[in-house]
């Protein structure tokens, strides 16, 4: 009499799954940038012809209330920005290392943003003004 052969269910090897997960976690930790460092509520200005940029190490932000932050910390005014930027860029020699990112709300008045812009330049920084790409007109 012929007997049917016994079929065992194939087992999926899951031992290496943890290693893969750890590698992915390391990747995401290295690539993450958290929104908390980018200042308060902000509506970025729109313009055409903007290019994709690497994020500089120095960040100046002005929110819709006109509050100025340097590296995520509130500062009193343009004079503090100038001294702060000049301290942070003290040993920076290449142009790329002198990049200072300016995130400013689109509605902010010139009385607030212009002294800050001037302070970054006087502090030795190259302004990287962040904005959003406007839809190209036909």
């Amino acid at each position: 009499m012929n007997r049917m052969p016994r079929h065992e269910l194939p087992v999926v090897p899951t031992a290496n799954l943890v290693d893969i997960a750890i590698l992915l976690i390391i990747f995401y930790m290295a690539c993450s940038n958290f929104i908390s460092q980018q200042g308060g509520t902000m509506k970025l200005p729109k313009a055409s012809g903007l290019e994709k940029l690497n994020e500089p190490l120095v960040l100046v932000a002005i929110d819709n209330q006109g509050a100025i932050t340097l590296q995520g910390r509130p500062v009193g005014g343009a004079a503090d920005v100038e001294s702060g930027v000049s301290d942070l860029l003290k040993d920076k020699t290449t142009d790329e290392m002198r990049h200072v990112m300016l995130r400013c709300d689109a509605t902010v008045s010139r009385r607030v943003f212009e002294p800050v812009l001037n302070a970054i330049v006087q502090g030795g920084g190259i302004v990287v003004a962040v904005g959003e790409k406007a839809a190209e007109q036909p």
Partner: protein
Amino acid sequence: MYKFPKKKMLGQDAIPTTSLADMMFLLLIFFIMTTTLTRVTGIVSDMPAGTKAQQPQSEKTPMISLHDNKITMNDKDMTREEMERTLKGMRLDQKSGNAKVVILATEGDVSYQDYYQTMAFIQTCGGIVAIESEDEGGAK
């Protein structure tokens, strides 16, 4: 007297690693949800710092002035489209050195949106933006 543990007892105190995979996947989900992989867009502007020099009329640096809702270029009122056409016609990308500089001045109430749009257009045309601001010592 201290007694060394017997060999067969050693394996019993091993760290439990069965829940490690669950923890790893929770962390993984957290990072996937919170990561932004998009790069920022903007303009890089190496603005010249210093004081304005006296120039003869023929070599005057072009100057765009934004005030309230008006645009003036070299003391002539114009619309944004006219200003953009004039800037394009100047072929700043083919010039070098100081000839690339365009002074951007502001008066009255100007929003960062208007300023940014003008600055981005000067950059797109190949120009270098210089900001003019009044201080105790005069224009910068």
